[in-house]
């Protein structure tokens, strides 16, 4: 059974989002929120929390699968490159062969320049569409 198509999702990062994410998640690493500090690091400026960028993949999968994703979805990803305020990040999913009753997708987040920021796989149980 073929996996259903999953619509891509794009978000533009802002420093305000990074600040809000730090407050909401409790991850207040200064590399994400302290611009003066971040400029002194090899990154040269603030970078987004990996989990913030990953949330775009999770949103994409939630939009496609709803309660099934909330109760039984899974992700396995690597953070490949940092995303920065001003970057427009696109999350997208490519269907793979299903396995053990689960739809499988190759998922990634890419920047507006086409740089892969996150890549990996996502799975969700097959449902009525299967």
């Amino acid at each position: 059974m073929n996996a259903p198509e999953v619509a891509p999702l794009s978000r533009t990062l802002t420093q305000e989002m990074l600040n809000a994410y730090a407050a909401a998640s409790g991850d207040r690493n200064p590399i994400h929120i302290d611009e003066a500090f971040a400029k002194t690091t090899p990154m040269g400026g603030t970078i987004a929390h990996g989990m913030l960028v990953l949330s775009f993949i999770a949103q994409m999968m939630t939009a496609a699968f709803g309660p099934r994703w909330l109760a039984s979805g899974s992700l396995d990803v690597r953070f490949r490159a940092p995303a920065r305020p001003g970057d427009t990040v696109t999350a997208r999913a490519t269907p793979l062969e299903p396995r053990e009753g689960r739809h499988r997708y190759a998922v990634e987040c890419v920047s507006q320049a086409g740089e892969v920021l996150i890549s990996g796989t996502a799975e969700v149980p097959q449902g009525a569409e299967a």
Partner: protein
Amino acid sequence: MTPLLTDLPAGHVFEPIRFSIDAAKSSAYRAATADGLSIYDEEGAVPPLAVAALALGALLERVGLPPGTLHASESLQAEAAVPVGATLECRARLTQRSQRAGWTVSVLDSEIVLDGRAAVKARATVLSPAS
């Protein structure tokens, strides 16, 4: 004094951390991630990644990260939907520790438990500059 993650030995088991995700925390997470989906309100549920993220945030109150630490990979498995207002317990363990190309590699496994059953399982791999 908060220990650094890199000071802890492989196999270290963290004290279980209890935390709750009320409507305000869930809304703050969704706003911060620009997540406007209505499904959470319809289901009365918290995004699974929010559960993992807030558990990680709670863990970071117990252990410090050396400057320059990077999040290298993340695995997450939702085992059950987590309702808004749930009180959860994060059971975390430093599963692996290794050195690679100037980095200290730490693998943290977490089970986030709701009513005695794992609701979310997560594995985070972080790289810290080797001292």
